[in-house]
């Protein structure tokens, strides 16, 4: 039987081998080969659904003269096309960050690292693509980076931060595309949001969010940790299960729970909106006073005894 220490050492050897292979340009080690139907840009003389710069320019021209539903269709088409491009470059960037962590750490001594690295990895190949067109005229911001703080952030934490930023903005864009017409959410506004979406997936944005999270709420978070009693934990399990079960009936008790906590509940709210409202209460439970109200409201609404 292999000793566990041997297994551990073997895993380290494998990790090192993977890194060496990646550095030698064996790009298929960290991910499988990208299928031709989604690779961007597409293979020569092929079409695979990639949103090209020519298509974008055609749609943008048509958008200017379109009206009503036709204009909305074009707006949405451009939005989702560009979003797909941004997602593609971000995923490649994420893989690159993960596989080059040692290089990442060495470069931690350089200010403006994040933006420089992001630009090199993403914009260098994108100058003539729709992404380049969307980002034309936009310059990244310089972030003063605390080197010590930067060193302490693992690539994983930074990737999580970037993904959180991106998810938030993407959800907002999709919601606006679904609910607002071109008068209230014209493509110019979409483009602005798409630019924010792109830069949300860069190291400066990740660092900025981590700085903000780290620099605020430390007092309240410390209070939470001291005051999460066994009873509170038990109640949290019960409320989670009760709300999940309430979903099958259309969330009647949950809506009452939200109303008791001051959340405006509209009869037309979808399940997704109810769930989002429930989740939004979580950070507020950090405050012991609000947590007491949270449990009281759950009891009044019949979610717990």
């Amino acid at each position, binding site marked *: 039987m292999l000793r566990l220490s041997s297994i551990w050492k073997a895993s380290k050897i494998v990790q090192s081998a993977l890194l060496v292979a990646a550095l030698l340009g064996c790009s298929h080690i960290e991910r499988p080969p990208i299928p031709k139907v989604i690779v961007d840009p597409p293979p020569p003389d092929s079409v695979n659904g990639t949103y090209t710069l020519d298509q974008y320019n055609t749609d943008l021209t048509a958008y200017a003269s379109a009206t009503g539903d036709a204009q909305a269709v074009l707006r949405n088409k451009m939005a989702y096309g560009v979003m797909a491009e941004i997602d593609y470059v971000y995923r490649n960037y994420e893989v690159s960050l993960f596989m080059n962590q040692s290089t990442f750490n060495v470069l931690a001594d350089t200010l403006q690292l994040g933006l420089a690295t992001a630009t090199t990895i993403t914009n260098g190949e994108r100058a003539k693509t729709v992404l380049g067109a969307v980002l034309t005229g936009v310059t990244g911001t310089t972030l003063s980076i605390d080197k010590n703080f930067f060193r*302490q952030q693992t690539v994983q934490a930074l990737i999580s931060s970037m993904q959180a930023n991106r998810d938030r903005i993407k959800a907002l864009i999709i919601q606006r595309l679904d609910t607002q017409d071109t008068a209230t959410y014209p493509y110019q506004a979409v483009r602005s949001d798409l630019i924010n979406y792109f830069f949300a997936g860069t190291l400066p944005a990740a660092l900025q969010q981590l700085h903000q999270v780290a620099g605020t709420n430390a007092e309240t978070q410390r209070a939470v940790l001291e005051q999460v009693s066994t009873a509170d934990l038990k109640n949290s399990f019960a409320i989670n299960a009760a709300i999940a079960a309430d979903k099958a009936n259309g969330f009647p008790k949950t809506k009452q729970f939200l109303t008791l906590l001051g959340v405006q509940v509209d009869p037309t709210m979808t399940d997704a909106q109810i769930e989002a409202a429930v989740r939004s209460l979580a950070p507020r439970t950090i405050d012991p006073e609000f947590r007491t109200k949270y449990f009281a409201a759950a009891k009044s609404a019949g979610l717990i005894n």
Partner: protein
Amino acid sequence: MATNQQLVDGSLSLDQQQQSLQFFEQVSFAKLIDYTKSGSNSNGGPPANQATFQDVPFGQQPPPIQLQAAKDDNDAASIMAAQVKAGKTIVFHATVFVGGKETIVIGFR
């Protein structure tokens, strides 16, 4: 699914941190996916850890996160092997603050 982050007081004991993380998983309908040291104490405040949570669909809450400390890397490997053998999933393996001191901790469920 969306992710969000929460600071956790690194001066608490391991059991206290586990309890708080489990609490936040339940109220936010999410699961812990990463736990690392935070640099928030650079301004002289108490040591803190950063928890990253990922939303889970309502009604699909996974088993609560459990934490176990390890003496060293060999001990960590042993703990992880035992938990995997018991059918658990390793969520993270990192050095975080516990009781104010850097400690190797494994998170599993």
